[in-house]
């Protein structure tokens, strides 16, 4: 009864805020219709709760309680704060694309001298005046997932990147999401990356807070198509404010002979969920996903991956490392489906959790659904504490308890971080891990 009441109340509040926000949301006609349909899909369920199987460990009704009103567009002061925050994330040689409070900030972004074959537009532009095919692609994610539906309804801005056939970009593209607002608000972003055939790019996504931004909500989604023979390297770092919420979804499709290497690390946000669907649409493709959670206090972070092997001769590797201290809660759900045609699939998943306190929790839910008979699939999981004999060895050599723990934690997550190919990006991830380690000592 209470839950029903809660749903109605938050539901109504949100319906109102959708109505209020509507004029600020880009797109008319088909786009507006798609938004309304998505909102209805969301509204039928509301915030997902633990009795929905997929959200068993991440009950957003309890953790998030409500969807905050849409953040105001950033003013000059907000942009200035954002500029300062972005500096800390600077990577040598990357092309920076900055979203401030959910709105693309041209002044903080680098749009000059785009390489031949690279096109970058804002989501707003595309929704207002893009071609129908692009607009349709932007609405592909499945609105059966309430948070995807909500994002489809409310998406305000983002970047739409198209890379032509045969274009291999040397320069990484770095999308930085910055929150600046001191008053609690939500931003809704969606980005699209279309990678042609025989192409390649490195995409970095960072989520950060400017000084003073606290209890905001970042709702993001990413849609990616990787063409035949193309390669995408992807790094995702969630360093949101410690009271913030980050709910992100990704839908990725690979053509034939394609390669997707992704690394994600969550060390920020009070509550976060990253749900990614990776679908093999062409044969002989390969995916490596590596993830790290570094959590303490009462942080809750959920990574939910769905690997869809629909065609033969593809390989996927999932490596996940969770570190949880204090009363933190780490969740990893990895679902692998091998469809009847997907013979010679090679899919493996390995998760390891390191619990630094008795009250910390790590839930791991592997799910393998295999409908083909000639496949190699496997998963493994371990959970444990830091090895006392290693800690003592380090302490006997002069390291304090925290220093010894830090070194062993670095080693524990190191294997996943090592998977990042680009040196500068690996350094960026190491620095983010370092910030988390330093904050706890």
């Amino acid at each position, binding site marked *: 009864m209470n839950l029903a009441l809660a749903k109605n109340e938050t539901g109504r509040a949100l319906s109102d805020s959708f109505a209020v926000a509507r004029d600020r949301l880009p797109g008319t006609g088909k786009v507006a219709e798609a938004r309304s349909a998505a909102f209805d899909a969301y509204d039928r369920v509301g915030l997902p709760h633990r009795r929905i199987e997929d959200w068993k460990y991440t009950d957003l009704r309890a953790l998030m309680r409500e969807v905050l009103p849409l953040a105001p567009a950033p003013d000059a002061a907000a942009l200035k704060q954002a500029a300062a925050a972005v500096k800390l994330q600077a990577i040598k040689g990357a092309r920076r694309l900055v979203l401030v409070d959910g709105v693309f900030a041209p002044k903080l972004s680098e749009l000059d001298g785009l390489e031949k074959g690279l096109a970058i537009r804002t989501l707003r532009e595309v929704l207002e005046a893009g071609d129908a095919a692009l607009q349709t692609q932007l609405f592909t994610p499945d609105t059966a997932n309430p948070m995807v539906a909500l994002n489809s309804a409310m998406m305000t801005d983002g970047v739409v990147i198209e890379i032509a056939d045969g274009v291999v970009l040397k320069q990484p593209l770095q999308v930085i999401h910055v929150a600046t607002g001191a008053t609690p608000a939500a931003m809704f972003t969606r980005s699209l990356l279309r990678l042609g055939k025989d192409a390649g790019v490195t995409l970095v996504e960072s989520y950060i807070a400017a000084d003073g931004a606290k209890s905001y909500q970042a709702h993001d989604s990413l849609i990616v198509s990787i063409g035949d023979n193309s390669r995408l390297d992807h790094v995702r770092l969630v360093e949101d404010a410690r009271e913030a919420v980050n709910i992100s979804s990704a839908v990725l499709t690979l053509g034939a002979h394609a390669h997707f290497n992704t690394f994600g690390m969550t060390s920020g946000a009070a509550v976060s969920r990253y749900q990614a669907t990776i679908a093999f649409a062409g044969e002989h493709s390969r995916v490596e996903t590596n993830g790290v959670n570094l959590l303490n206090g009462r942080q809750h972070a959920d990574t939910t991956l769905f690997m869809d092997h629909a065609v033969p001769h593809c390989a996927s590797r999932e490596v996940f490392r969770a570190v949880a201290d204090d009363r933190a809660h780490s969740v990893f759900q990895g679902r692998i489906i091998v469809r009847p045609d997907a013979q010679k699939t090679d899919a493996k998943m390995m998760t390891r959790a390191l619990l630094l306190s008795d009250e910390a929790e790590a839930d791991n839910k592997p799910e393998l659904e295999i409908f083909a008979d000639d496949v190699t699939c496997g998963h493994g999981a371990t959970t444990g504490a830091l090895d006392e004999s290693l800690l003592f060895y380090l302490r*006997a*050599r*002069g390291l304090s308890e925290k220093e*010894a723990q830090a*070194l062993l934690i670095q*080693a524990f997550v*190191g294997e996943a971080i090592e998977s990042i190919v680009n040196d500068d990006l690996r350094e960026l991830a190491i620095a983010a891990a370092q910030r988390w380690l330093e904050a706890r000592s």
Partner: protein
Amino acid sequence: MTALLEVKDLKVRVEDNEILHGLTLTVNPGEVHAIMGPNGSGKSTLSHVIAGKPGYEVTDGQILFRGEDLLEMEPDERAAKGVFLAFQYPVEIPGVTTWNFLHTALNAQRKARGESQLSSPEFLKKVRAVAKSLNIPQDMLKRGVNVGFSGGEKKRNEILQMALFEPAVCILDEMDSGLDIDALRVAADGVNALRSPERAMVVITHYQRLLNYIVPDFVHVMSKGRVVKSGGKDLALELEASGYAQFEDAA
């Protein structure tokens, strides 16, 4: 003169078993002590308690380091003050390079003593020189701490650390086990190079052979958690000839 290390009537329990039953040992600066004794007599237990390993309960007695109560100090404080244990079984630490470990440890000790931090180049220079003197190949430093090291390499890594940290009292727990004859000589030379009027060594071994290379000032025989006999370097030869049986009754 204050002793460097004084173990007085030490009684130690692990879980419900008393393992050391009142052990006394005094080590002065400049001295080399050898401790010998049958398997299970408590030699490693003594070394662990001196280094501060958790899990041991000291029920009686004390350990003083330069007159200070060592048992009150955290293991890292003991290390920074100059207590070093070369482990009988050094652990493997995958994912932490030897080089990073040594640099972090040395700087942690220096910081605790209020000394300046060594930059990477300064450290590199120092560690290279030490490694070279011990015949340790550079690429061992790039590998994970003791990961995939042979038994002998692990022991050499312990000696390397000892040479690098320059402790005041070095406890070597069976540093000779697993070393071939050449490696033993190199390691012993490394230990001898560190002998000085200010520094003391406690060498735990089963074999008199090591004591040909590291000649002790005193030899103690441990049995069943006590020192049952002490003497000069000749005591080791005597043991080699007649075994421990004669002391079993004394314990």
